[in-house]
């Protein structure tokens, strides 16, 4: 990064922060801090929902996922349109009529206090762990840009996020997100244009697609019925529908976004906006990863994309071994590039025999490249848990984009990280204040007292997420890690709401113990079964409904602490 990049970076970040503070000045009551002012139009609601989900993790990690595994990850979003329709038609009208601040208030009104506390506790546990993972994203950017140690950057970026959230609250998140998402897309588009421009001359669109397809990067839809395969059409449509239903319908960080709509219409249209545009948006981001893959077939990438870690190992570990790996990688990559050029020439001359031979040679050479990269991963971390795919896109940005755009994109990632983390911490603070502190610990206090408490809880959860990030070793690609944690806890939460909405005869005691039993079952199955994590969303929700029904039948109809009013 040069001086121009720093000017763009600081200007963009300061502009966003100051605008957020200016727009939310004078809004100091608890309700607007927690829920926003409730006057958001559908477009703001839609962008806010999109930006909360499409955090820096999405923009940093998803191209890396496309680079490593191609387009297949898009299938996780197949459940989203169906889930958002169900939420718009069923969940949303109930939340708005009950005028809830948190989704878990519904559980209190429909069942009883213990069901509400269980829902809030599951959310806090799940989202608290998730916040610990998503805080990695801005830290990765800082670490790569400035060459700082990852731990120091986690602490620095975490403290900035806490200050931003506490000073602005939900409204600051809402009013700046629409601009942040604009910056994000401008940056991604710029990266895409530069990437296309830097592909070898003569490599047409059809050649590029054939090449990517030949290396299994364009398998967007997988019809396999093997439950062990992570992303298939079936796990996407069935399992991911329940994941998205739980995330958008019961996770306070999302519910908080769309209940801030000025009316039911605005909230619904905001959700439908996401239902239509999320899949093309993710397709674009994953395609960027595939383009990166193609680009790095012709330009030699680093053998290990996390260069800070690689250099650290070279300085403090076996430098000779790393040097040997780099030499092997350069040779393997050069061989692959030569075979690729032979293949492209054969295509141009129409020599099908030479084309088939060269294509087989490309596959073999690519396997060699991947073998050396695996050796590099093992050299950095002998357990093989540390992955470098999250560093692919940021490495490209820093190495190949023009100055000015680098600053813009780094600002983009920061802005996305800031808004998503702010939304997350704001939701954690809200749920702790409203569902636990105000409901159980201190029932009668002033609005100012609860507002202060909410801010302190936000600080508390910010520190928890920093601590978790410092102690955890990230084994998965970021975007997958977030979804895996969600798939362990969300099914139970969704089960609570599904029972509440659709099974009128089941009361608080039955659903509480049914949900607890389900949580134990899901955690047990996760460690015992080898199936795609998406299926746990379906299994867990179904188990919660089943266990609750059985328990209610055993308890009898008289033992039914249910409000007949808080039902759809």
């Amino acid at each position: 990064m040069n001086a121009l990049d720093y000017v763009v970076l600081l200007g963009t970040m300061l502009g966003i922060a100051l605008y957020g503070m200016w727009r939310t000045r004078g809004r100091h009551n608890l309700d607007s801090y927690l829920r926003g002012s409730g006057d958001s139009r559908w477009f703001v609601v839609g962008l806010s929902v999109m930006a909360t989900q499409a955090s820096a993790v999405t923009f940093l990690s998803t191209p890396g996922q496309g680079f490593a595994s191609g387009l297949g990850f898009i299938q996780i979003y197949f459940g989203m349109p169906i889930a958002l329709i169900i939420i718009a038609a069923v969940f949303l009208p109930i939340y708005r009529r009950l005028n809830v601040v948190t989704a878990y208030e519904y559980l209190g009104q429909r069942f009883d206090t213990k069901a509400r506390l269980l829902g809030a506790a599951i959310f806090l546990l799940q989202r608290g762990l998730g916040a610990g993972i998503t805080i990695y994203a801005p830290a990765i950017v800082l670490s790569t840009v400035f060459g700082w140690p990852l731990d120091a950057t986690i602490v620095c970026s975490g403290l900035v996020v806490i200050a931003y959230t506490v000073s602005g609250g939900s409204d600051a998140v809402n009013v700046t997100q629409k601009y942040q998402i604009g910056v994000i897309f401008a940056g991604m588009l710029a990266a895409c244009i530069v990437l296309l421009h830097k592909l070898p001359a003569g490599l047409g669109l059809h050649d590029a697609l054939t090449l990517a397809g030949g290396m299994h990067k364009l398998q967007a839809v997988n019809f396999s019925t093997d439950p062990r395969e992570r992303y298939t059409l079936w796990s996407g449509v069935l399992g991911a529908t329940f994941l998205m239903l739980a995330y958008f319908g019961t996770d306070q960080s999302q519910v908080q976004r769309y209940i801030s709509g000025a009316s039911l219409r605005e909230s619904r249209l905001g959700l439908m906006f996401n239902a239509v545009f999320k899949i093309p948006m993710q397709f674009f981001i994953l395609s960027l990863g595939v383009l990166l893959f193609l680009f790095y077939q012709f330009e030699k990438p680093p053998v290990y994309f996390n260069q800070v870690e690689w250099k650290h190992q070279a300085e403090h570990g076996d430098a000779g071994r790393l040097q040997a790996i780099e030499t092997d990688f350069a040779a393997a990559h050069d061989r692959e590039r030569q075979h690729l050029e032979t293949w492209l020439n054969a295509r141009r001359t129409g020599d099908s025999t030479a084309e088939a031979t060269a294509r087989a040679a490309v596959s073999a050479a690519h396997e060699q490249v991947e073998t050396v990269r695996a050796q590099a991963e093992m050299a950095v971390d002998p357990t093989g848990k540390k992955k470098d795919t999250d560093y692919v896109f940021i490495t490209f940005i820093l190495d190949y984009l023009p100055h000015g755009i680098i600053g813009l994109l780094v600002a983009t990632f920061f802005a996305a990280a800031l808004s998503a983390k702010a939304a997350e911490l704001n939701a954690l603070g809200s749920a702790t204040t409203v569902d636990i502190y105000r409901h159980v610990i201190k029932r009668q206090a002033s609005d100012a007292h609860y507002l202060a408490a909410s801010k302190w809880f936000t600080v508390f959860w910010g520190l928890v997420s920093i601590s978790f990030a410092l102690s955890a070793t990230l084994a998965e690609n970021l975007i997958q890690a977030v979804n895996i944690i969600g798939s362990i806890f969300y099914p139970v939460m969704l089960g609570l709401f599904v029972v509440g909405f659709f099974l009128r005869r089941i009361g608080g005691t039955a659903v509480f113990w049914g949900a607890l039993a389900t949580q134990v079952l899901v955690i047990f199955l996760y460690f015992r079964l080898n199936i795609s994590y998406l299926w746990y969303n379906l299994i867990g929700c179904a188990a919660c409904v089943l266990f609750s029904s059985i328990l209610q039948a055993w308890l009898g109809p008289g033992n039914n602490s249910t409000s007949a009013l808080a039902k759809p």
Partner: protein
Amino acid sequence: MNLPDDTTAGSSGVTPASADSDHCKTGLPLLRTWRAVYVFVLAAFALWVGLLIALSRMFS
């Protein structure tokens, strides 16, 4: 687990969800009912999946 009773349980004056929510106007020129909006969203979803399947098949 012995928790205090929820004082709000049963006190919420909620009417059935479909009373006005499904009948409120979408305000959209062609999609005037929410059902039409949902059908449109599902059609867009089907179109995207179809295009992705075609891409997978063409370049596998």
